[in-house]
């Protein structure tokens, strides 16, 4: 095991562009601490993100970072992990990046069950581009692209991810830093696709009642409700309250995690490579079409 890595060993010198008061500062701080608890050196961590304020987060860590394009962090991250399953792969983005343009990739990342941790900083708005509607904006919300109030029902990220069968689903808020740190750590340790929806308010474009001060009074831990996180149905039921209640903690943790995609690939490669090792220089020997 490596020498002890302090949280600050994961902090890069790059100054965040985030507005003072942004919830994402708490998220990255919690991430430093969670990574320190796990102890993987930064060069063994690949941090992939999309586009958005929250997607800037890889650059604020000392890990290998890849700030990709809007909505495509999950596929790119899966490619990273499949290419080198020994890496710790973390994925981050906002609610728009993940559930609007990126929405088509969510079910497949979940069902493929590549071992990575997806942190979504959910603030119900598009901050980087100045305050437009997002897929988790509540109905009726007035924004610059919904001046008369949004006409759409918001997507429920918790219900969506649970329904697609994710093995670890949690929600956190920077208003509870110890809790959020513990959840991020647990998600990173979970062997398979893990998801933490982080209610990280936008201090510039978010609603007043969504700010962290409000979280402190509104939040309720699932543990305090007596929720059993191995109960998927109960988790789905509690997830329906997204938007009304701010539940924190683990909604669902699969007590018997299935093998990850890359573990199955490795198994298959081992089976296929049993016996004679293959030489790429002899690839044409195996040409299936032959005369006569």
């Amino acid at each position: 095991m490596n020498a002890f890595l302090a949280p600050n060993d994961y902090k890069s010198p790059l100054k965040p562009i985030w507005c003072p008061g942004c919830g994402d500062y708490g998220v990255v701080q919690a991430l430093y601490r969670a990574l320190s608890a796990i102890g993987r050196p930064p060069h063994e961590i690949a941090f992939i993100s999309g586009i958005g304020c929250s997607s800037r987060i890889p650059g604020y860590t000392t890990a290998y970072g890849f700030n990709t394009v809007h909505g495509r962090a999950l596929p790119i991250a899966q490619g990273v992990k499949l290419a080198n399953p020994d890496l710790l792969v973390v994925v981050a983005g906002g609610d728009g990046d993940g559930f609007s343009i990126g929405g088509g990739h969510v079910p497949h990342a979940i069902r493929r069950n590549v071992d990575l941790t997806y942190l979504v900083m959910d603030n119900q708005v598009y901050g980087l581009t100045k305050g437009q509607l997002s897929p988790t904006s509540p109905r009726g919300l007035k924004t610059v692209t919904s001046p008369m109030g949004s006409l759409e029902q918001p997507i429920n990220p918790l219900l969506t991810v649970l329904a697609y069968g994710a093995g670890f689903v949690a929600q956190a808020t920077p208003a509870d830093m110890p809790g959020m740190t513990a959840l991020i750590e647990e998600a990173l340790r979970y062997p398979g696709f893990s998801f933490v929806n982080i209610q990280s308010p936008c201090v510039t474009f978010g609603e007043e009642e969504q700010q962290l001060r409000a979280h402190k009074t509104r939040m309720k831990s699932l543990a305090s409700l007596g929720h059993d996180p191995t109960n998927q149905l109960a988790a789905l039921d509690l997830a329906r309250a997204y938007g009304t209640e701010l539940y924190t903690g683990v909604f669902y943790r699969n007590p018997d995690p299935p093998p990850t995609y890359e573990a199955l690939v490795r198994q298959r490669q081992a089976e296929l490579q049993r016996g004679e090792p293959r030489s790429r220089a002899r690839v044409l020997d195996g040409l299936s079409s032959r005369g006569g």
Partner: protein
Amino acid sequence: MLEDLVVGMVGSGGDGVVSAGESLLAAVASQGFHALMTKSFGSQIRGGESSCRVRISGRKVLNPGGVLDVAVALNWEDFRRFGAELPLGPDTVVIHEAKAGPPPADLAPPGHGPRQVLAVPLGELAKSAAGTDRAKTTVVLGILSGWFGIPPEALDRALQKKFAQKGEGLLEANRKALAAGIAHARAHPLDAPRVLAPPPSSTPKLLCDGNEMCASAAIFAGCEFFGGYPITPSTEVMQILSRELPKYGGVVLQAEDEISGVGAAVGASFAGKKSMTATSGPGMSLKTEVLGLASIAELPLVLVDVQRGGPSTGLPTKPEQADLFQAAFSAHGDVLRPVLAPTGVEDTFRLTVEAFNLAERYQTPVVLLSDQEIAQRKETLEPIDVSRFEVLHRLVPTPEQLAEGYQRFAETPSGVSPLSHPGMPGGNYLAAGIEHDVRGAPTASGAVHASMNAKRFRKLGALQERADLFEREGPRDAPLGLVSWGSSAGVAREAFALARARGLPVQLLVPHLLYPVAEPVYREFFASARRGLVLELSHQGQLYRVLRMFVDVPPGVTSFARSGAQPFHADEVVERLQQQAEGLVR
């Protein structure tokens, strides 16, 4: 004796015409002939009109050929649907199912009649020999054997391969059908013999199609990750790799969509592995944004675009060469991306390896522009000596560079900066689509942006000197020039030989590197070739236009281009060259 025989066969999907073509191809290849087979279908999954074309020769076959020497029609409605794809000429021997009646008047060019139109009771012969009229295509093989000299033992071996697994008695029945066809041919000889000359060597040839060759080459080049999505006509690349690549420790991901496929491939490249994706025009359109990401993040990637008829859904099963603009120019911003193009199955191997080498060496996405004809046609090959191919790997930082404070995007004279990957201690960096400084930190500085753009372009400057990625034939001072790429180059090669035989002063240029335009090569070519043609299958003549963007194309060199699904024939190209040559006299 015939040096070259082009056979076209048409039926409906249930007749097994294409399958018969494959047996014919396998038979002649096993005898040492050179051969090439293409297929063409209607739009149904099964049972629609279907056709194949097999060209057989003792010499290397350069393209599928033009006018048919032999046309086999099981019915005329289906035959008509293929139109100009299967042209009949005055010397074509037309064999048709007797029950279908004589060919309709409109199917032969006016004023010309086929020399021999032979009604053969194929169904009846099949029924009496094999017990079912479904064996009529096997009877056809027998007829072809009897009239044109295809060795019957070779056909028998092909039948064995086809029917051995398909049930008791089928092989026997089809052997009888073959014999019945041969007997019929012998009993009704052609009025002038048309027998294929035996090939110079009887060593069996390898058979392969473009997609399989591409997949094999990728394995050879060290590809370890493929991310993609099914799309006609590229899907076979993914299918073959999904079966083979894991045997070499690689991973194939059929992703949920085109964007995810290329995204995963870019991720794998970021993680240090050689990776690729394969698609066709519509998929490439979707992948555009991620290609731009790979360009600015300076990550190697091979993207195979097997062109088909466009735009949009277009003609999924037909060849066209209209993706050059997209391959070269798509992705917003100033992006320079190498584009390579094979011309046939054999050079698909070499150019796929080259694509990986360019990608790794220059840390960039590289587009390999194949097309439906190359990808799905089967042709014979001489064995390929892979030891002549160099395989290159990305430049990684040295331990000293890592210890001294690694700068991922360091300014270097060549423009190529060493590339680390996750897992490499000391190589940690931020890769991003956003513009960045030498360390990878985001920047909005105009000066840094200008120098980064310059770096990304500078590193590809060496491609201007890659004359080895061009084929030149003919005298270097010939005043008539013929330029062609992709599958059209096969026709150009044949036209070039015919034109030279006629005494035309012509030289041939076949670019494999389409973009960036290697200006020195073209300047030298057009210095003497002041008249000529740029031959390609697209409505706009895309290479012609791209050349005009970067070099002074002489006004006497014109574009000979037309929409896909109507491949060129050598004869029409020779005619045009002849016309161009007349302009020289003045």
